[in-house]
C-alpha cells in the first residue's frame, strides 16, 4: 500500500501546550497531516518533531522512503536559524551510524515517527535561536597582513558566531538547498513528487533555489498556508491559536481540506 509522507515540526506532530503548562503531542484533531489522511482517505506516514528543521529532513526522508512505498511527500519548511547539535561519546565522526539511529518507532503501529534524543552513546537535539539569545553584531576583523585575525570568531560565544557568521548568511541558504537537493536526489529515482510548503509568513522560503541546478521532483508552494487561507477563506490564522504558537484545530482542518490539495495542484 502506497502512503503519503509528511515531514514537519510541532504543527505536524499534533503538538500544543496546555493551560496547565503540560504538553500534548500526536493529537489527531490538531494535526493537518492526520486530518488530510482522514478527509481524503489517503494512508499516510508522518515523521515530525517539535523544533524540526531542514537539517533533519534528508535522513528522515531517506528512512521513510526505505520504509514505505510512496509517490507523494509533503515537507513543511520550518523556521530558519534552527540548528542541530549533537554529541558522540566515541568521538567517531558518525562511523557506523545508520539512518535509523534516532528514529523513535514507539508509535510505528500508527505510522507516526519522531526522533529519540539519546540513543547508544549519541545524542542529537535542536536549538532555536530565540530573541533572548541575540547579541548585536560587533564587526568582523580580517586583515591580509594578519590572516589569523578572523579566528577571533572562534572566541566569541557560540550563539553569537552561529548567528552572525553562519545563520544570517548565504551559508544557511547553501545548507537549506543542499538538504533539499538530497531529498530531490532520492525522490528522482523513486518517482516521488515532493511538495515544500510553509505554514505562515514568519517562515523564510528562498527565492534563490538554483545554486546546484534545478530541482527535478521537489516543488515549492509559492504561498503560505497563512496567505492562502486569508485570501481564499478569510481566515486570519494568526488569531487562531491554541497556545502562544500553535494553531487551533480549525486551522489544521482548513490546511488539510483546502491548502494541501492546492499545494499539490499549484506548486512549481
Amino acid at each position, binding site marked *: 500500500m502506497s502512503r503519503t509522507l509528511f515531514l514537519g515540526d510541532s504543527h505536524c506532530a499534533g503538538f500544543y501546550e496546555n493551560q496547565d503548562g503540560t504538553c500534548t503531542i500526536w493529537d489527531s484533531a490538531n494535526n493537518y497531516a492526520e486530518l488530510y489522511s482522514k478527509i481524503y482517505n489517503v494512508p499516510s506516514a508522518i515523521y515530525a518533531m517539535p523544533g524540526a528543521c531542514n*537539517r533533519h529532513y*534528508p535522513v528522515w526522508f*531517506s528512512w521513510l522512503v526505505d520504509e514505505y512505498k510512496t509517490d507523494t511527500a509533503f515537507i513543511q519548511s520550518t523556521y*530558519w536559524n534552527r540548528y*542541530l*547539535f*549533537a*554529541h*558522540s561519546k566515541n568521538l567517531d*565522526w*558518525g*562511523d*557506523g*551510524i*545508520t*539512518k535509523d*539511529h534516532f528514529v523513535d518507532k514507539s508509535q510505528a503501529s500508527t505510522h507516526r515517527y519522531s526522533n529519540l*534524543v539519546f540513543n547508544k552513546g*549519541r*545524542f*542529537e*537535539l535542536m*536549538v532555536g*535561536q530565540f530573541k533572548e*539569545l541575540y547579541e548585536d553584531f560587533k564587526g*568582523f576583523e*580580517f586583515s591580509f597582513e594578519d590572516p589569523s585575525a*578572523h579566528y577571533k*570568531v*572562534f*572566541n*566569541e*560565544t*557560540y*550563539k*553569537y*558566531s*552561529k548567528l*552572525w*557568521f*553562519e545563520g*544570517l*548568511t*548565504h*551559508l544557511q*541558504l*547553501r*545548507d537549506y538547498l*543542499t*538538504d533539499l*537537493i*538530497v531529498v530531490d*536526489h*532520492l525522490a528522482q529515482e523513486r518517482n516521488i513528487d515532493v511538495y515544500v510548503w510553509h505554514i505562515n509568513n514568519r517562515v*523564510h522560503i*528562498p527565492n*534563490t533555489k538554483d*545554486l*546546484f*541546478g534545478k530541482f527535478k521532483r521537489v516543488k515549492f508552494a509559492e504561498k503560505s498556508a497563512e496567505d492562502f487561507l486569508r485570501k481564499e477563506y478569510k481566515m486570519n490564522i494568526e488569531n487562531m491559536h491554541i497556545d502562544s504558537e500553535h494553531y487551533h484545530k480549525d486551522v489544521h482542518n482548513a490546511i488539510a481540506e483546502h491548502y494541501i490539495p492546492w499545494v499539490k495542484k499549484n506548486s512549481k
Partner: protein
Amino acid sequence: MKHTLFLGDSHSAGYTIDNDGQALHWTENNYAEIYSAKNNQPCAIYAQAGGCNRKFPTWISCLLDRYDVNKIFIQSTHWNRYLVANDPNLDLGESYAKDTFLERNEDSANGLVHRYTDKRYAGNRYEALLGQFEEYWDKFKGFKGSIDNPYGEFEILENQYRYTKLWHEALTHLQLRDYIADMTVIDHMVRNTDIPVYVWTINNRIHLPKNTDLYRGFDNVKFVYTSAEDFLFERHRMKISKMVVEDKEHYNYDVHSAIAEYYLPYIEKNY
C-alpha cells in the same frame, strides 16, 4: 576537447613556501597541473588553501556551467574545517550567486590549465575558512541538557564557538551528514552522465568515512580508500611524510609528480 576537473585545498593550488618563508601559489608543486601536462589533458582546477567539502558542491556547480567535462578528481581534505561568512545585507543569501566568490587566476604557462580559487570578499560579503587547530581545543565539559532539564541544552550556546562547534557539531555524526550531503549534491549534479567523480585523500591524516550510504549509495561518486601516501609507499617505496617543503606540511615536486604519474591513473583504473 573535454576538461578534467580538480578540486582541493593548498595541495591542488600549487601552494608552497619559498626560502624566505613566503607563501607561493600556483607553483610547479601541483599534481593536477603535472597530470594535465603528462596527458596533454585540458583541466580546470578550483582550489584554495584550507579548502574543504563545504565548498565543493558550489565549486563543481560553477565549473559544470563552464566546461564540458570528462572526469572529476576531488581531493577530500581534513575534517574540522568550517566556513564562516558575513553578509551585512542580512538577506539570508538572496543576493548570493554560486560564483559570487569565484576568482579566475592566470592560466598555466602551457595554457592547458584554467585556475580558479575563491576570494574572501565579494563586495561587503565575505566567506572564510577556519581550521580547528590544536590551540583552539578545550576539554569537554559534559552536557547538562536532559528530558528533566530541557533548558540545560541552551548552555552550550553560551560557550565559546570553538568549543561548541568542536564538541557538539564536528566530533559527531552531524559532520558526517554534512559530508555525505555535500557529496550527494555532487552526485546529483552529474547524475545520468558518464562523468566519474573520484574522491581521494592525499595522506592518512584525512578521514574518509566508510558508511557513505547514509541516504543511499552513490552513482558517479567513487570513494578511494587507499590514500596517495599508502599507495606511493606500497608501490613505489616513497615515504611522502618525509618529502615535504620547509613548512613540513606541503609536499615537494617529486610527490606531486608521483601522484600525477602513478596514483591518479591507478584510481581511474581501479575505481
